[in-house]
């Protein structure tokens, strides 16, 4: 079972992101369960959502305490909420930021993490560019597909089109696709640097 925890703020589409990831996994024939941690349903308040992906029925209903991956939609949460609680030692970390992990003050924290599992991407900028609104959730899903390979980009795109329609859907598809490509490029460059 692969478990993803999403951290963000009300209005950033945190819950929708978890739901879309579950739809993408379902489209690939897998079992998936997405659910929110409710309470602070106010714009700007910290919100957490969860997604589990497995090859058999998921009966477990506890919140995700030991995630395989974290998607942090708002870097300002790093000072407010214990986003990294329970993260597996070789877990993935995706952060919506134009800065590096070191610039966010996480250099020491991620020193022992596998670098290819860390991903910083300016998802809000991508969302503004394509969608015209600061909703980083969808580009982060595109990045997630690229970094983890847990779901394919085309499944994410299918999920986007199931959740949204018309222009908004296509704008989000463009945002996810560009995020996916950017992360792929970075990964290729890193691999190239290693081999050289």
């Amino acid at each position, binding site marked *: 079972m692969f478990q993803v*925890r999403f951290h963000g703020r009300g209005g950033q589409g945190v819950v929708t992101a*978890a*739901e879309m990831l*579950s*739809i993408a996994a*379902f*489209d690939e024939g897998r*079992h*998936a*369960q*997405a*659910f*929110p*941690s*409710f*309470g*602070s349903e106010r714009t700007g*308040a*910290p919100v*957490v959502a*969860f997604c589990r992906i497995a090859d058999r029925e*998921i*009966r*477990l*209903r*506890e*919140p*995700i*305490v030991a995630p395989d991956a974290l998607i942090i939609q708002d870097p300002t949460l790093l000072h*407010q*909420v214990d986003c990294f*609680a*329970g993260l597996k030692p070789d877990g993935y970390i995706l952060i919506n930021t134009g800065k590096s992990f070191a610039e966010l003050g996480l250099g020491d924290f991620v020193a022992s993490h596998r670098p290819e599992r860390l991903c910083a991407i300016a998802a809000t900028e991508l969302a503004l560019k394509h969608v015209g609104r600061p909703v980083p959730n969808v580009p982060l899903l595109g990045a997630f597909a690229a970094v983890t390979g847990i779901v394919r980009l085309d499944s994410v795109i299918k999920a986007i089109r199931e959740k949204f329609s018309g222009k908004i859907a296509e704008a989000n598809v463009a945002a996810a696709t560009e995020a996916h490509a950017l992360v792929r490029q970075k990964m290729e460059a890193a691999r190239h640097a290693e081999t050289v």
Partner: protein
Amino acid sequence: MLKQCEGSRAVAEAVALCRPEVVCAYPISPQTHIVEALGEMVKTGQLAPCEFINVESEFAAMSVAIGASAAGARSYTATASQGLLFMAEAVFNASGLGLPIVMTVANRAIGAPINIWNDHSDALALRDAGWIQLFAENNQEALDLHIQAFRLGEELSLPVMVCMDGFILTHAYERVDMPTQEQVDAYLPKYEPRQVLDPAEPVSIGAMVGPEAFMEVRYLAHAKQMEALKLIPAYAAEFKQVFGRDSGGLTHTYHCEDAETIVVAMGSVLGTIKDVVDEMRAAGHRIGVLGITLFRPFPIEGVRAGLQGAKRVVVLEKSMAVGLGGILSTNVRMALSGLHMHGYTVIAGLGGRAITKKSLMGLFLKAEKDALEHVTFLDLDWAIVNKQLEREKARRRSGPVAENLLRDIGVVAARNY
């Protein structure tokens, strides 16, 4: 057809497939998405003929459902928590009048302190209101139980409450197999009321009954509800024939054959418990689970048969009887009369407190050693409890409990992971 959707959506679509003629509801979390979806289906004409009635309160919602049902319409509503309490008087009337309304209760705690999260306090507060009460373990069962609920309620002329855990199920996206209209039509006959307000054959419904016959009317309500114990297994079997899956029934056992310890529970926590039991079984522990799908009428014989081979029973419930202990466990005790075994009550998950595998594992290992208290509050934070007790001892005017505890914890946002 398999689909990935929210539990509320799955239930709304299942209810629509049952062709309700009147849907009335007042929004309250975590039930809102269900009736929102139904309202949309009525507006677009996808669900027709059906009237969606916006009402001004839950009391009005149940009152409209009563009127509609008495006029011969298949009627549906949904609520939760304070909403259910607010409609309480009408809830009793619906069953007293024998009207087969189906209502979803998206289980949520009851205040004060106000809390929007899941537990079973709401439905269990109305356990003796004369409604049949079914509890769903997952979203597939939630949608299946609604289809069975219309069939059962209309056959008996009794209202049915389908309970599903608020947020944990209502807001969870998971895989469900959505039946076709043809399947539902084949299973659920057209509503043929046993009593109806019909100008062609005028009757009145709702007479005042004095001491001369009141007890007899109440006895008949009891006797009628007990008939559900026979009908439900038959309807579940027929359901399997039409839809090809097991859903509903009275109780479900899991690894109980040779179990020394059996855990009894209702609702979505059964999934987490089963995962823990799988791990314990793999390590050689003789532990099993008895899930209760039907809470009213209470399946005394089935529960007794399922538990009588065990050495001990752990009833884990998301409800409590203040001043006594458990509600579900008190009911289970009725089924165990005369049997010699250890019985433990565990209150867990109140107001959305997460019930984790880790805590359950520790709990069950302790139970196996008969080292549990008779009533246990799972994962209780004794530090803040004791701090408040000391505060109350030290100062008469020690302030409101809820506010004091929140200040002690220093809550920024509700945390549940």
